[in-house]
């Protein structure tokens, strides 16, 4: 199956490490990725606050480009950024269930000779890795099982809500299953899908910080060595503001926050460099050792 890759704006700046690790992991697993040519911003949440139809049109252009670029029309468009993933999925969903919206959007696309059939399938790398590629195959590829590493899997909001595309909205498990497949252990916690503050950390910081804080403290309280995310904004919020939270609210938070693909890369034996680990503010020290002879890889 051919996969198209939609980086989205964040993966070109704050989420650089996410892009690097996604590409590295897919390469290591020999899953071909092809970047969507001349993709544009998905519109994120802000755009919907100004003009709904324009927002749909903006996102639809990407879906249309994908349709063209993948010869057979049935495109699998991978969007690692949670916001992009949701906006594209949402657009796809509304365009199919509301013919009049689709009509409006297509009328707009027609002006530049584009037309969207509605065949693009928006996917999240987590979905692709766990469900298309498969955990068994991943386990087989693990070179450095993450023995004894306690991971807090943080899904955030927009990958699992509001659409139940590949996991439960209220209590998702795919990232946990993935981490276990890499030999790590995961913590049971109720906050795995609670909002990290999103863009509020940039606007109404007080509010934003407190949301991130709740997650970080609870993860630490449950003795997690590291938190992994599948969203650049979550990663940014949870990692970059730890000092500020400690300063402002007198906490003692110190927990590495990485992308799930980075953790995966480590287990697959990729170098920290190619996974962009060096870009993290507090670098996780992975106490990983190559398995002794005869010892099963998956602990």
């Amino acid at each position, binding site marked *: 199956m051919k996969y198209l890759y939609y980086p989205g704006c964040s993966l070109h700046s704050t989420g650089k490490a996410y892009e690097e690790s996604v590409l590295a992991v897919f390469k290591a697993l020999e899953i071909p990725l092809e970047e969507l040519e001349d993709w544009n911003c998905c519109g994120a949440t802000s755009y919907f606050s100004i003009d709904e139809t324009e927002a749909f049109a903006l996102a639809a252009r990407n879906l249309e480009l994908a349709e063209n670029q993948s010869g057979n029309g049935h495109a699998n468009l991978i969007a690692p950024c949670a916001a992009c993933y949701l906006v594209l999925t949402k657009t796809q969903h509304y365009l199919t269930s509301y013919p009049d919206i689709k009509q409006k959007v297509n009328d707009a696309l027609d002006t530049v000779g584009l037309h969207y059939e509605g065949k693009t399938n928006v996917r999240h790398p987590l979905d692709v890795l766990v469900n298309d590629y498969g955990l068994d195959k991943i386990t087989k590829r693990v070179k450095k099982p993450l023995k004894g590493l306690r991971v807090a899997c943080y899904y955030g909001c927009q990958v699992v809500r509001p659409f139940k595309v590949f996991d*439960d909205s*209220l*209590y998702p498990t795919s990232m946990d299953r993935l981490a276990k497949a890499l030999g790590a252990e995961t913590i*049971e*916690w*109720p*906050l795995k899908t609670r909002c990290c503050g999103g863009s509020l950390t940039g606007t109404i910081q007080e509010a934003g910080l407190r949301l991130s804080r*709740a997650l970080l403290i*609870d993860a630490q*309280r449950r003795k997690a060595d590291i938190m992994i995310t599948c969203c650049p904004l979550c990663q940014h919020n949870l990692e970059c503001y730890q000092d500020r939270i400690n300063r402002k609210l007198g906490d003692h938070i110190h927990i590495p926050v990485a992308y799930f693909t980075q953790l995966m890369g480590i287990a697959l034996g990729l170098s920290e460099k190619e996974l962009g680990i060096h870009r993290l503010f507090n670098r996780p020290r992975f106490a990983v050792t190559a398995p002794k002879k005869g010892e099963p890889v998956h602990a």
Partner: protein
Amino acid sequence: MPDVKLNGSIRIGFYICHCGHNIASTVDVDAVAQYVATLPGVIVSRDYKYMCSDPGQEMIQTDIKEQNLNRIVVASCSPLLHEHTFRTATEKGGLNPYYFQMVNIRENVSWVHTDKSAATTKAKDLARAAILRVFHHRSLEPKRVPVNPDAMVVGGGIAGIHAALTLANAGKKVYLVEREPTIGGHMAMFDKTFPTLDCAACILTPKMSQVKNHPNITLWTYSEVTNVEGYVGNYSVTVKRKPRYIIEDLCVGCLECIEKCIYKEGKYPDEFNVGLSKRKPVYIPFPQATPQLVVIDPDTCIEFKSGKCKKTCVEACDRDAIDFKQEERFEEVKVGTIILTTGFQTFDARRVPYYGYGKYPNVYTSLEVERLVNASGPTGGDVILRDGRRPTSIAIIHCVGSRDKNTNRWCSRTCCMYSLKLAHLLKEHTEAEVYNFYIDMRTPGKSYEEFYDKLLDENVRFIRGRVAEVTDWADRPSEEGKLVIRVEDTMVGVVRRIPVDMVVLAVGMEPQSDAQAVRKLFNISCSTEGFFLERHPKLAPVDTFTDGIYIAGACQGPKDIPDTVAQAGAAAAQALTLIDSGEIELEPNTAFVVQDACSGCRTCLTICPYSAISRDDAKQKAYINEALCKGCGTCVAACPSGAIKQNLFEDEMIFSEIDGILNTGPAGTNGGVACSPK
């Protein structure tokens, strides 16, 4: 096509009903009456406010006599509602009731349309259809069949128990079939009952033993209905008797075998205590179980698993009642009526993960708490949590799996009241702080609101708001080690976090998981939620669309004990009416073969689902056994030579209805005869 010559002998009376404003407000009844007066054969055409009223019916009767009418057409509500009424009126007037035809202009017209002219046109079309139809009506004699006086009740909860006793006390023989090893159902598991707080066991167990000892009741527990055949008054039911591995007539319920089982302690989750305690492979559900017979569970008994058990139970039984070789038996019985009281199941709280049931040990379902506070329960009535602590603060969450489009959208009607009851009992047992989280407090019932008042005075805390989540996420030290409730106190308009030790989920009532299968078995319908469908929501609440089969209790919809018992009584009364009438009049809509026309081609033989059609090979003709025919008319439609006719639904009748509707009859504009296939 009615032969216009007939007009001389056909004298039709047409009556259109206003039904107050129900019809008259949307259909111009006057115009319809005037129009119908112009149709062939119509002698009388009147409109009246309420045709179903006595004056209305008398009008018909007098007209029949004075105008010597020989056909009656009434345009009013649905025939399913009043056909019988008007047939009787016709008969009282001295006519054969089957000369009557009904036109549905309420359910099918006035109630579903707004455009008055369109509605009036439609009413005219339908009336015309009926007028043309009655030309072909013939005098018929209803088929009468005797009603078997024996009855069957399926389901041994409080509904089944009450229905069975009512019938039995009226001197009828009753078979009570229960799938569990004991009767009693959910009520037997409850501790106290609202609003009077009398103990469930105290009022239920006497009735249970009455059932056991009643000479007219045959009690079959651990049994299931597997097949139902026949028709109203004459059903034949097959019942599977599952093996108990105990010879019922020998066992006296001394429980020695349980005592001596090689398992010293219980090892498997106890169904009756909803898994809060453990039982042995040989067990009795609860002390007052009826009948007092032990059961051996083959899935857990060592003898069944390995065949290498010391069989200490067998040694223990001095009456040799234990029989590992026992096999399931099938009994076939004939009954005239059947009452279904198969009850409900509680909502599985795991379906709403945000309440943490199954994840946090101290989250309980209401049913579990009923056992927990029960003196004969797993803890002897002591409220000790799964983690061994005693709660100092308890949250009761209403509407779990009710009023939620993501799970069950209906209100379960009982949860508010039983939550109040549990609040009272838990406070009594623990002196803990008790919170009730509700969306709307629904206490509609005799002295229910008073009970709510009482609770308010017992300073139970009431917070109006649907709880969003139960977590062990401590936001501050005071919440450490607690279950934290997150809810908006909608009366204050503020979101609150409330730490508690114990959470009780007031789970809703839903249809039994096998309701659909049961429904098919007894040939009745289910409403959209999956509960059994009553014949009429108001006027026939315990009847079904299959004559002789009645429903009562929570299988028809969520219900508390008083309503259930009332409905069970009603169902029994309906059954008695049928039984005591001795015989039942069947709609004479059976099919018959016009011998001369039959070519003996055998097409019909294979089609009849009741094998009511046989072939006289000597005469080379098909023949229909009227007693077996149920009147579906499938054979009529299939007969290539048109030799089979169905009473009340003859081809001519339906063709003339089509004529009438499309206005191509003799009254029609284009003479109609144009292109009739016949």
